[in-house]
Each structure stands twice: as C-alpha cells, then as structure tokens.
C-alpha cells in the first residue's frame, strides 16, 4: 500500500461487527482507532479489546458517554484523531466511520483514489444560510440558541427551552463570526486540516460554542474545515441516506447489487445481521463493479422510491397501511381522471357505443343503475373481481368506484349516471377531484318523457324526479365538491347538439379527433316542448323554457369551468 488512510470508528453496539471491520482494515494495512461508547457493557468491550489487542495497527481511545446529538461525539472524534495523528505519522487522510459502516469499494481503491487527491478534504459542508440541508427539524436555529437538554431523553425540556428562546429571540454570538455549515457527519479529512483544527489557538472558544449547539457532530468539523482547508470537496465519501421518518436507511443482503453501484467508498447503515453483505464486502478479494465516479449515484435513486411511498400522495387506493382521515380523506382522490355523463344518454341512447368507437376510453354503461351494474362490454365481473352485484356495490358505493378506477388505471374511464340511478354514489363522485362531470340541467324531464312513453303513472313520478334533481343540486353546491363540472342546458343540446358531443369527446380522450359520425338523437323537439308545457301546467317550476327550433347564437356552451347552480 502506497498511500496510508487511517480509520476512526465510533461504535456503541454490535462489537462483533466492529471487530470484523477493524480486522479487514488492518489486513489492508490501514491503521484503526476505535472509540466505544461508555454505556456499552464492559464484558462486550473487553472481548473486543482482547481480540484486537495484539494488532499493532489498532488503538482504543478513552470511552466517553456519546449520546446521540451531543458534543461528546465530537470530543470522541477529536480524541481519536489525536491518537491517529500522533501514533501513525504516515497517515495522509483520516476517514471517520461508524460501527455500522462497511466499505463498498476495497480499501485499496480508496487509498488509490486519495493518493491522487492529496491535500483535498472530503466533507459535506453546506452553508445553513443558503441551502436547505436539514430534512426535518431545526436548521439555522441550531446555531442561534442554547441546547442544554437532550432531544432523545429530555424531549419536554428540550421543546420548552427552544420555545422560550424562540420567544425571547435568543441569538448567540458566534466566535470569530464563523459561518455555520452543516453536512453528513461522516467525513474524510487530510492530516493537515485535522492538525490545524486540533491545534487552533481559538479551539477552546469554538468547543465551548459548539457544545451548546444542536447535533454538533453535523456541524463542528463541517464549519471548521471551511476555516482551515485549502481544498475542500463538499461531499461525503460515505453513502448514507435518511428516510422520510428521519432515520438512516438500513442496508440488507438484497441490497448488495445496489450498494455495489454506489459512487461512494463506504456505506451506512448496515443491518448488523446482514451476513452476506458483511461476508462479501469484507472479503479481501472483493472487487466492486466499476462505476464512473462522475456518474449519478444510483444507490440514492433506489432509496428515493421508498421516500415517495411515505410522502402523502393521493394514490386512490387504501390498504392496511393507508387510510386517510379528516382533511386528508376529504382530498383523497381516485387513481385517475374519469368522466361522468349525467343526462346525455337520454338524448343520445347510442352514446356508449359511439364513445367506444371514436375514442380509446373504456366506456361503461350506467355503473350505478338501480337494477344492476352495467360494466363496459356488459361484463359480469370487472378486473380485480368486482362483481356486478348491485347490493355489494350499494353497500360501499365510494369503495366500488375507487376500485373500478384503480383496477384499470391504465385506461381512461367514462360512465353514465342518470336521475333514475342509485343516487348514493353522488357523494363519492362530487368529492373526487378526478371526476369530470358533464351534466345536462333538468335532464329529468327527458327521463320523465321516457316514462310517459312507457305509460307509467306520471304525476307522482314527476314529483320524485323533480325532488331528485333538487337533491343533486344541493350535493353539487356543497363546499366539499371537488369535481370538475361542465353544465349544459336542454336548450344548448337541442339547438346545437354537436357542442355537447365535441365536449364529450374532448373530455373522455386527450386527442381531438374530428367527429366522424353523430349518434342518433332520440327525442324530438316537439315532444320535449309538449312535456315542458305539460309539466308547467301541472305546477312545476322549470328553468327550461320552450325551445325554439332555430339555432340561435348559443349562449352557454358549457366551457365555463365549475359553473355551479344551487
């Protein structure tokens, strides 16, 4: 080995793994200085000490109580660095690592890498004022306030003191106007820089200052290296990533491939029982796959996926680990955009086949029909084994809808929903921001006309239908309505049906194809006018007026977004 790299290992548990790591490193001629937490059981420490005592390249430093986020971790590092510099004069770079780190490239590779970069410090060091390095928690405040209490064990006191200091606008004076920097606590610094940090005449002032900041192990060396380093690369040679809950991702045997592709030299944090990972990476003959050092770190990309799962995303699917409540339930959407056609089918009975022919959209019939579920292509069951049983559908209408969309989230859906259908699904549809509803106002008149033709009792039916329409309007007017609404009046439809058809086509598919054919219109204008007149005489107050046959300048084409009428 030509260029010598020393390793400082800070550990508090799983000392068996520390022993393995130290043995590996010393076999490759790298000196190792180990610090073991004071609270680690004496027997465990003794075992490690005896095993490594005869090894001339291993030193131990006095044990301190290194609690998470406290200054003692920095002191332990300083102690160990002191021993390293004094006892191993050939060491050019010192690598700080933990007991759960593993080299993902051989130690030889790291020393080759560093020998060509002598005098360069590798430490992630980000100015708090410019960058958001902190994922969750205090950033600038770490340096402004005093933190006498432990966040882990004295949480209440911690919260209290920060709260009070925030109120008092405490702003500590920084010695020598140091510019606070933050970064990963795992660094690799040169002998020169470390010596300058250790022997700085102002060191005692710095130590006093940092001892009352929060998590100083993420800022002490990061800040002081900026003061002393001649050449600093702001990146860590140790791969480490925090998950959405703020703890480092653990590495397991099945991560071997991912870890091998890392552009870093060490990885943390390894699950202590990951036997294969330890065996493979601590094999003297292990050769990591060649990765261009400038390449994007695929390891990080891999773990980013896990990040997104823990982010509040509206996936449109509940499962045993996801059930949004309260505000989050209110805004929970289905899996993708779909179209609900309320009324158009009463004008154009063949609209379903027309949509299926002219677009790629999966067009169902009346999904919520009272007498059964009308899936696309009249299927008995839909993907995901959703049955066409209307009782099961009615039992949990919103789950039914969410399942239909989720199970075929590879296509766009459209379905019909008319005044004669089970009205339970209204809530589910209108609160869903993914629903695009194309609605014909007072379409119930058309439904009534249909019933009248069939010779049913009319007056009582008309009352019911009218009441349904009013209920629907109330649902739409609710504050919780998130659906996108396009409203047409009966007048629009009968005077210029192509406007509606074009809108439907536009909505259900992204492509704008010219209308090849138009479906046949079932209801005649004369019939409709007769019914409107009849209903008026029966005492119903209608918005729709008698429609003249001439195609006038069409007023409301339904282009207005969210035209809501109560």
């Amino acid at each position, binding site marked *: 080995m030509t260029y010598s790299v020393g390793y400082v290992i800070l550990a508090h548990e799983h000392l068996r793994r520390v022993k393995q790591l130290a043995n590996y490193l010393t076999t490759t001629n790298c000196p190792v200085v180990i610090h073991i937490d004071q609270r680690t059981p004496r027997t465990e420490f003794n075992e490690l000490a005896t095993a490594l005592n005869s090894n001339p390249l291993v030193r131990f430093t006095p044990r301190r109580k290194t609690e998470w986020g406290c200054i003692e971790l920095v002191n332990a590092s300083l102690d160990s660095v002191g021993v390293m510099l004094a006892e191993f004069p050939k060491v050019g770079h010192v690598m700080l690592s933990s007991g759960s780190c593993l080299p993902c490239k051989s130690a030889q590779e790291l020393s080759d890498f560093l020998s060509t970069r002598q005098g360069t410090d590798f430490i992630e060091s980000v100015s708090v004022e410019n960058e958001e390095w902190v994922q969750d928690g205090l950033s600038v405040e770490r340096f402004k306030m005093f933190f006498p209490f432990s966040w882990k064990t004295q949480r209440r006191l911690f919260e209290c003191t920060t709260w009070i200091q925030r109120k008092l606008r405490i702003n500590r004076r920084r010695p020598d106007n140091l510019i606070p920097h933050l970064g990963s606590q795992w660094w690799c610094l040169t002998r020169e820089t470390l010596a300058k940090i250790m022997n700085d005449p102002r060191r005692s002032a710095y130590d006093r200052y940092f001892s009352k900041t929060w998590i100083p192990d993420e800022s002490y060396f990061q800040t002081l290296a900026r003061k002393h380093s001649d050449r600093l690369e702001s990146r860590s040679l140790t791969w480490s990533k925090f998950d959405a809950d703020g703890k480092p991702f653990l590495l397991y045997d*099945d991560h071997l491939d991912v870890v091998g592709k890392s552009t870093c030299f060490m990885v943390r944090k390894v699950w202590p029982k990951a036997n294969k990972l330890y065996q493979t990476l601590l094999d003297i003959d292990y050769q990591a796959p060649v990765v261009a050092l400038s390449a994007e770190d695929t390891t990080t990309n891999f773990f980013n996926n896990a990040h997104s*799962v823990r982010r*509040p995303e509206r996936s449109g699917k509940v499962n*045993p*680990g*996801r059930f949004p409540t309260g505000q*989050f339930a209110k805004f929970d959407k289905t899996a993708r955009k779909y179209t609900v056609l309320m009324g158009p089918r009463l004008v154009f009975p063949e609209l379903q086949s027309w949509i299926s022919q002219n677009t790629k959209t999966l067009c169902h019939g009346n999904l919520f029909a009272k007498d059964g579920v009308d899936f696309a292509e009249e299927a008995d069951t839909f993907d995901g084994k959703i049955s066409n049983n209307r009782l099961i559908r009615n039992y949990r209408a919103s789950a039914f809808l969410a399942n239909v969309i989720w199970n075929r989230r590879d296509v766009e859906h459209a379905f019909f929903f008319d005044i004669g259908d089970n009205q339970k699904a209204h809530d589910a549809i209108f609160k869903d921001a993914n629903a695009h509803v194309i609605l014909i106002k007072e379409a119930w008149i058309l439904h009534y006309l249909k019933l009248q033709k069939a010779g049913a009792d009319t007056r009582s039916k008309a009352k019911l239908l009218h009441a349904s329409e009013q209920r629907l309007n109330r649902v739409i007017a609710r504050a919780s309505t998130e659906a996108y609404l396009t409203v047409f009046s009966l007048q629009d439809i009968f005077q210029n049906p192509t406007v509606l058809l074009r809108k439907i086509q536009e909505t259900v598919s992204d492509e704008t194809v010219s209308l090849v054919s138009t479906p046949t219109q079932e209801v005649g204008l004369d019939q409709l006018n007769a019914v409107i007149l009849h209903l008026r005489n029966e005492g119903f107050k209608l918005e729709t007026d008698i429609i003249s046959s001439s195609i006038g300048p069409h007023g409301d084409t339904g282009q207005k977004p969210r035209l809501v009428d109560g």
Partner: protein
Amino acid sequence: MSVKGCRFFWILCVDVDEFFVYPHCDTRSLDALTDWLDASSIRSFGTMLLDMYPKGEIQDAKCSEGEDPIEIAPYFDAGNYSYSLNAKYKNLWIQGGPRQRVFFAEKPSFGPALNKIPLVKWGRANMFVSSTHVILPRSLNVVYATDGSQIISGCLLHAKFLDTFVDLAKDKELCSQHYAGGREYKYYEKLSNVEANLFTPQSTKYQNWQQLRDLGLMSSGGWA
C-alpha cells in the same frame, strides 16, 4: 384470547391456515422486519386477510402432507375490497373478497372482516379483543397512516378453501363454534348444491409480495 407472561416481545399470531406475507419476505427474515419496526417505533403490523381458492371445485382441492396449500389454491380477488373505520377501537374494517361476493351476495354487510394485526410488540397491558382483528390498547390498531402516505403493511394468505372446508361446513357442531354461529358455513351449505366454485377468469394468481404491493393490497412503507 389473552397472552400472559409475554412482555415486550414481538409475537406473531396466525391461524394454521394463514400464511404471513410481508415486504421483502423473500430475502429478509422476520428478524429484519421486527428490528426495523423497533427502530421505527412501530408496535403493531397491519395485514389484510386474502382468501385463496383453487381453480375448480373446492372439494377437489386436496392438500396432502408436505404440500404447499397456496400452490393448490393459488387464486384470490385482487381489487374488490372496501375499507371503513371502526370508531370504537380505531381499527380498519376491511370487507370484500370471495366470501362476500359468493356467500354474502344478498347481505354484503355480513361479509367477514378481513383486517388482521398478527404481529404485535406485546406488553403486559395488551389484549386481543376479537381474534387478531382488534387489539387493546386502541393505539395498536392504528396500523395505517392517516395523512395519505403509506405505512408498512402486509397480507395473510388464507388457505381456507381446500377440501377440508367442505367437511367443516357439513359438521354442524363445529360450525356453531365459529363467528356468529358459523354463519358463513350455513351459507356455504346452501350453495354446495350448486357448483361451489369461487374461481372466475378475473381471479388473480398469486406470485409474490411484489405483486401484492403493485396491486395496492400491501405496502413496503419506508422500508427499502
């Protein structure tokens, strides 16, 4: 049901016909899971019971000793489940699947509960209220994220529909010991005159945990 003497141990409580599937179960031991749950301060692990059934009649699905029942009954319903919240115990109430679809088609609200919490960090004050469906204290039932993200969760493959189910349905005394007097077995009896076949072309064949995750039935949460 109560478990005495266990204090702050992870316990896995499954029936003989339930097969526990958790994220990475093909490469990582249960040890890895519980270590990770500990580190994440998660004390209970939620699952969904997935009723498995064979292709063909249930009575022909014989599983001899040493055979994998999931290979004999490898099909399940992938996406016809509904979720609601039990306000009293804060647990999820999952219904759906082949039993609701076939046995309770006329009374969907009777569909059996499919939510289970089989893996729990057991403390002295804990108790199962209704099998592993509901636990006390209530906080253990909150195995789900309420903010729209996903917490880690799994599935229990339920190898219920083998030929043994038919024998059980015939034994009236045994049936009555089950939930609500063996309600579902009574339904099955009525049905057995017709061809009892839960399989349809829309059924999904079980492959692995990744498949269940992609179907949205479970989640690996933040465990990468």
